[in-house]
């Protein structure tokens, strides 16, 4: 679950990126986050992953909770615990070119010191789930954009995260592949994982439907189902 109450973010250069934002996304929900460039979408994502900290104000009590972690009180040394509950999908896929599909997916489990036995069992399972079983030994450079994003999805899923944050996952894909990726995200969501997808593509959002959160000038200007 994501819960923000009266949360603001001011960067060191004085820019108010988020202003008194309150928002609640329940477990198992699927929400699109839209907004113009510079509206505060990226700051919201960075806030949820603890890349940036919320302002601490004496006059307002802010609440910021993600997957049971209180980010207002979280120490830097504990940030990795939060991130182990989140799966990330990026616009530019962020795959490691020198690793095969299998190794890219297994990399996540290796990074969190998972047992080798579990890695050998879990990785083929997730790769199969995303229809990549035939590509397991390929390198990212040998795959299409859609396939690369599916690998990124497999990587996000492999650690059974409570929440998937997809930052413009369809930004580099053609319309048909974009729909395919969002459908996959919906399927993942149907299995109980909360999904927060940031996008610019209003048409895609209209087509898929669901909860839409619009951010404008650092504030939530719309939050409802469409």
């Amino acid at each position, binding site marked *: 679950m994501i819960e923000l109450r009266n949360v603001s973010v001011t960067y060191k250069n004085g820019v108010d990126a988020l202003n008194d934002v309150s928002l609640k996304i329940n477990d198992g929900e699927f929400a699109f986050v839209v907004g113009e460039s510079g509206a505060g979408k990226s700051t919201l994502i960075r806030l949820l992953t603890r890349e940036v900290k919320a302002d601490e104000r004496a006059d307002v009590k802010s609440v910021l909770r993600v997957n049971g972690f209180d980010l207002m009180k979280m120490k830097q040394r504990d940030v990795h615990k939060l991130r182990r509950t989140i799966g990330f999908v990026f616009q530019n896929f962020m795959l490691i070119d020198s690793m095969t599909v299998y190794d890219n997916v297994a990399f996540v489990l*290796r990074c969190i010191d998972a047992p*080798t036995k579990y890695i050998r069992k879990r990785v083929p399972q997730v790769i199969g789930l995303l229809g990549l079983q035939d590509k397991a030994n390929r390198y990212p450079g040998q795959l299409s954009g859609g396939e690369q994003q599916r690998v990124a999805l497999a990587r996000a899923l492999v650690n059974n995260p409570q929440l998937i944050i997809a930052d413009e996952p369809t930004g580099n894909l053609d319309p048909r592949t974009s729909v395919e990726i969002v459908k996959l995200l919906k399927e993942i969501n149907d299995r109980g994982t909360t999904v927060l997808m940031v996008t610019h593509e209003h048409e895609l959002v209209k087509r898929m439907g669901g909860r839409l959160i619009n951010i404008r000038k650092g504030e939530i200007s719309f939050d409802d189902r469409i």
Partner: protein
Amino acid sequence: MRLSGAGYLIKQGVRNILNNNIASVATFCVLTVSLLIVGFTALFTLNINSFISGVEDKNEVVIFLTDDADDNYIEELGNKLRADSNISDVVFWSKEEAFDDLKSSMPDAEDIFGYIDENPLPDAYRIKIKDISQMSSTLYAINSYSHIEKVKAPYDFVNILTGLKSAIMVVCVVIFFSLMLVCFVMISNITRASVEMRHREITIMKYVGATDGFIKVPFFIEGLTLGILAGVLASLLTFVGYDRLIALLSTETTLFSAMGSSGFIPLSTFMWKLAVIYIAAGALLASIGTVGSVKKHVKV
């Protein structure tokens, strides 16, 4: 951490060296050359010191005694001189020995010596000073004893030698630390470039919840391995190069023997110590340089 996890990190560290072969070779070469330069500077300093010490050992001070000093006093003075921690080689030089030495040094003047009825030369002690920088205070103490007629010491020689030693030490220390600094900057820059290339990998690791320690370990292993290898190669090159350099200097130059050298420091006296220092310094420089370069990237 699991054993399999530790194995994975070590494997990753070694794999990083192979995957980033250009950066690895560059780091390895810079490290080896840096260690060699610093090592040879240190050896040069040590050898120069050894040469100067050799020359220092040749200093001699002669303490002439007055004629009224009796045998008991002469013996007592000898004991005092031997008890001084800055004096070595105390040798009594009797007036008879001095006269014989004078005669033998002037074989053509035998007739003249026949006219001398009484030996005019004084009894004396010939001593050597251990630390010539402390010569003044030692001689001051000797001059305070009774029955001292004159103390003859190579003051000019000592001043030149002390000044030379200090100047060489200062120059070598400055060169040594400047080189260390240059090496560190070069290694940091090369490792930084190598780490920059893996920025994406580090970012992903941070996003998936890897701890900072987990991220740094492969880089540490990589730096450590390269540092140890560079240390081993620098040791081998020094072992081979040092002996050849000694052979070359001994045959092609007469400078060192002219200075009254006590010889070069033999390789066997420092070989293993130097190897350990090379390997430790290489490992330390490379691992600190590499891990330091990762620091910026883990702040995601």
